[in-house]
């Protein structure tokens, strides 16, 4: 597997991709098993649904419970996971070798920069296609294991649509990474594009007269043409592929016209912006000047850009959702009534006819947990990043104890979660005021508090992995994977009342099994999250004290 750049890149990533596929299989299996356990109730439920709705979601009546669950796997979880794997490979394609300093060797091999770029892109596309294919086969297996079958669902067509949309995002990330040489910028901007295109594709059709906008979102082409029912829609896929090829060509042009970075001592995009006289003052104000007063202050200034960008995004979305709710008004009740459980499960069975329910579905069930998880996981994993960067040798020989170092990172993680919670509450409050929705202010604040509590728990998981292993990638992948799995468990297992109690193993249960906008803070749930987080942090501190430091 070391015969070429292409093979080595596949070799480095296939295990990570396999973990993602296994997680998808587990979620699909749990969902299908939960629905299948409902027996005739489920079938009757589907048969009673309006044909227009089945058509809209690409579910064919014969496909039954399997079709409902697979709709979710192909239109929501699958694309996030598979495009996410591809984007992380694509962003690292050129920019990652530069950041790691290995481009100094790779760049002086007898390979042109164009050839290197193409090898890396081909590897990312291979991993994306293989992951999508394996995941699809595993869904069929999950159905068979639950005593169902996949007749009536065009798995192949859905897989092709998923791969093409993921390849589009891969090409976008490669383009940014190759032009800028900045891996963080490439992956951050592409994940931003994925989330925005997901929201546009899901929300634009809800607003009368704005459904055309959805077609401009790459995400729309996952479910818009209903490939599971209608087969491959070649036209739009060809357009996406041509755009992807153009972006890869732009990537090759971009990487050929600039200096390659040597990794060490490189200037971050943030520092470049700081030096720019036109925007420097504002960038410094937003990002902070990189405080070095204490370990906590330094750690906090490291994650502050993430908090502000993620928090601002979710706050902005909260305001938009308030206005959107007013715009849709009464139309929503009829639409929601016809939605199947698999879709409603994802948004916590929110009653979307009320402002509180609509907000829960649109902000609190997915986007706010995602943002707080990203911030908290990064803050927790930062403990091991000191070892990856080899800065720990300096830090740990300064007159501070290891407990102080780990506790500082834990404090930063808690602060980050609380700040995201505050920004969520602020966004909800602003949306409430602008749209005049009349939601209870105390309950708005309580929602922010619950978001913070969830973040603290997830961050503690990342911290304990980082503290015990000294490997920041393991902390990010482990805590991220567990978060996705817990989200899946809480969303899909309770669909079947017989299994409902299993949701209690998920922190998402304690975060939002009752909508905090309707019932206020769930103090017992919050206590469970904080108590578990405290235990995890204590274990992390002990593990960090006990082991040899890496680097």
């Amino acid at each position, binding site marked *: 597997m070391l015969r070429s750049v292409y093979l080595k890149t596949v070799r480095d990533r296939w295990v990570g991709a396999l973990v993602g596929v296994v997680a998808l299989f587990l979620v699909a299996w749990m969902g299908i098993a939960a629905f299948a356990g409902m027996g005739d109730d489920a079938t009757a439920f589907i048969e009673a649904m309006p044909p227009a709705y089945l058509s809209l979601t690409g579910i064919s009546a014969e496909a039954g419970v399997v079709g409902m669950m697979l709709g979710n796997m192909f239109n929501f979880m699958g694309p996030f996971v598979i495009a996410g794997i591809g984007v992380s490979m694509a962003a690292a394609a050129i920019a990652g070798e530069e950041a790691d300093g290995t481009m100094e060797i790779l760049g*002086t091999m007898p390979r042109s920069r164009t050839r290197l770029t193409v090898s890396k892109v081909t590897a990312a596309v291979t991993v994306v296609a293989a992951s999508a294919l394996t995941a699809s086969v595993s869904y069929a297996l999950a159905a068979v294991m639950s005593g169902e079958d996949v007749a009536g669902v065009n798995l192949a067509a859905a897989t092709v649509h998923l791969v093409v949309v993921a390849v589009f995002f891969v090409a976008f990330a490669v383009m940014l990474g190759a032009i800028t040489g900045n891996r963080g910028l490439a992956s951050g901007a592409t994940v931003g594009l994925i989330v925005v295109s997901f929201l546009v594709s899901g929300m634009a059709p809800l607003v009368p007269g704005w459904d055309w906008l959805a077609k401009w979102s790459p995400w729309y082409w996952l479910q818009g043409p209903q490939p599971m029912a209608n087969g491959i829609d070649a036209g739009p896929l060809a357009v996406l592929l041509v755009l992807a090829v153009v972006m890869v060509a732009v990537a090759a042009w971009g990487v050929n016209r600039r200096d390659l970075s040597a990794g060490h001592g490189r200037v971050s995009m943030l520092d470049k912006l700081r030096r720019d006289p036109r925007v420097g003052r504002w960038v410094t104000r937003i990002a902070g000047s990189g405080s070095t007063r204490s370990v906590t202050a330094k750690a906090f200034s490291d994650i502050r850009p993430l908090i502000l960008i993620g928090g601002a995004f979710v706050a902005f979305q909260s305001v938009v959702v308030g206005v959107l709710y007013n715009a849709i008004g009464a139309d929503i009740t009829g639409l929601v009534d016809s939605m199947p459980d698999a879709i409603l499960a994802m948004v916590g069975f929110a009653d979307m006819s009320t402002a509180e329910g609509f907000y829960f579905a649109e902000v609190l069930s997915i986007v706010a947990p995602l943002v707080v998880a990203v911030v908290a996981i990064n803050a927790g994993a930062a403990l091991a990043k000191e070892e990856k960067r080899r800065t720990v040798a300096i830090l740990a020989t300064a007159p501070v104890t290891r407990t102080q170092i780990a506790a500082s990172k834990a404090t930063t993680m808690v602060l980050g979660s609380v700040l995201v919670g505050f920004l969520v509450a602020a966004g909800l409050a602003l949306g409430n005021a602008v749209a005049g929705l009349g939601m209870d202010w105390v309950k708005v604040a309580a929602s922010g508090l619950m978001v913070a509590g969830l973040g603290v728990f997830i961050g503690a998981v990342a911290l304990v992995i980082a503290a015990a292993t000294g490997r920041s990638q393991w902390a990010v992948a482990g805590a991220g994977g567990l978060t996705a799995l817990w989200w899946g468990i809480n969303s899909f297992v309770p669909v079947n009342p017989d299994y409902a109690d299993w949701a209690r193993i998920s922190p998402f249960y304690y975060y939002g099994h009752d909508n905090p906008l309707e019932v206020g803070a769930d103090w017992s749930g919050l206590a469970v999250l904080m108590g578990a987080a405290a235990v995890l942090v204590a274990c992390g501190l002990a593990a960090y004290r006990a082991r040899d430091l890496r680097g």
Partner: protein
Amino acid sequence: MTASPSIEVDRLTKRYGDFTAVDDVSFEIHPGEIFGFLGPNGAGKSTTIRAILDLIRPTAGACRVLGLDSRTDAVEIHRRTGFLPADLALWPNLTGKQTLQYLANLRGGVDWGFVDELTQRLDADLSKKVGEYSSGNRQKIGIIQAFMHMPEVLILDEPITGLDPLVQLEFHTLLRETAQAGRTVFLSSHTISEVERVADKVAFIRRGHLIAVEQMSDLQDKALRRITLEFAAPVAPEAFRGVEGVHEVSVEGATVTAQYEGSMAPLLSVATRHDVVSVASASVDLDEIFLEFYRDEVAAAGGDPSREPDTSSPVA
């Protein structure tokens, strides 16, 4: 020298915004030469090397390797060149052996028997993951990958970093063998003794300006020595000024330090007019020779020609 140069740097300039890392630098290196490229940290050594290898693009000027243009023929140049970067980074999840296999596969035509020989001579351990190596062991992998395809040109940036003295000796033997076989070595270093030991030609770069390029043999003829004289009572420095061969005199209490070239006799005859308690003599470092003989050039480059500590700037 009749053969066409292996490396030709022609009026190379590289700017990063307002900062000029390399300013109008030109030199040539010929086949069979070991070329020492000396300068303090941040002088522009690595920037010059990275431009030669097309990792970065010149703001002005051009570089040619083996008669090929560094921009348009980069792939062919890379095929025929071995490179060891400063601050070497490798893939931490590969073992030493896997790293060499990977790079050998990308290059093609590597004789594995020669890799084994290099491994043995440098006493390298190829069995562990790169992430677990000490910096010295990692550096050995870097040296092997630069030499393993027997390139016509070797470009080595601070190669002895982290190597123990015995391995350094073996490495220098390897450099001499390479040059004797008619191949070219470009050795960038801030370690004077290393360059003195192996180089045929030396260039001195400071703050992006090339101060001078000299044959090592010419430099050794100019060799300055330093003498430290301890007297029973303080002696005025004026006593030594103007004495034949004496360059610089400094006095600290009853101790006089002077730099001189040529015979020590005129200096000693002045000294023995006073009550001499002890005499100590040592050779002067290469960079001090440069600073002494190229005062005007160093001053023009913005440095203090008398004595200047190393400066750090963003680009090395």
